[in-house]
């Protein structure tokens, strides 16, 4: 599987502030996504991080609230802006390993997550 790291692993933030989460992969990947997991809930896709262009957001998520950067094929950031307690969640990045020598099918792997608490 791909080795994915996220920083920070957790943070406690004040209402109205912003936090940038980093996702680093040990190899170049074409597809990278950001998901949110609210407390006790399942995962919801926030956006696709596109290298060299604007991210593609899912319904209910907007760029002003969740700006995303993807400067290259191994790195992406997600910013949670103007935070409120409702933003308290685990934020996970994921990458897709394309079928090839290691596997005959695509597989999606998840980072360790960033646990965000907003007071």
């Amino acid at each position, binding site marked *: *599987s791909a080795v994915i790291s996220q920083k920070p692993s957790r943070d406690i933030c004040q209402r109205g502030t912003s936090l940038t989460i980093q996702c680093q992969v040990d190899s170049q990947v074409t597809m990278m996504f950001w998901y949110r997991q609210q407390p006790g*809930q399942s995962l919801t896709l926030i956006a696709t991080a596109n290298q060299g262009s604007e991210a593609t957001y899912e319904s209910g998520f907007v760029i002003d609230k969740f700006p995303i950067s993807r400067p290259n094929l191994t790195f992406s950031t997600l910013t949670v802006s103007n935070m409120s307690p409702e933003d308290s969640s685990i934020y996970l990045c994921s990458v897709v390993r394309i079928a090839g020598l290691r596997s005959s099918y695509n597989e999606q792997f998840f980072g360790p997550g960033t646990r965000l608490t907003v007071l």
Partner: protein
Amino acid sequence: ELKVEQNPLFLSMQEEKNYTIYCNYSTTSDRLYWYRQDPGKSLESLFVLLSNGAVKQEGRLMASLDTKARLSTLHITAAVHDLSATYFCAVDDFGNEKLTFGTGTRLTIIP
């Protein structure tokens, strides 16, 4: 809108018993994934099912896919405590790798 439902949501079972988790989805997708999540941890990929009738097994876990019924099952054989975790199914509806996750099943194995 794609809907993915799992049942049961919570499952407590004794060791050495067998049980099945069900994942129903609302589209004709033939790409379904199973993940495991331990408390406070990220997701671990368990199975990738890519065609009707696909069956995969790893240890005490076996997953199957029936695309006509829009149903996947995760069967647990002779459960052991180490299998306690939350299990998610996820569907890729358009083949674009964007996953819609099920509600999750929190499994607790009681010694």
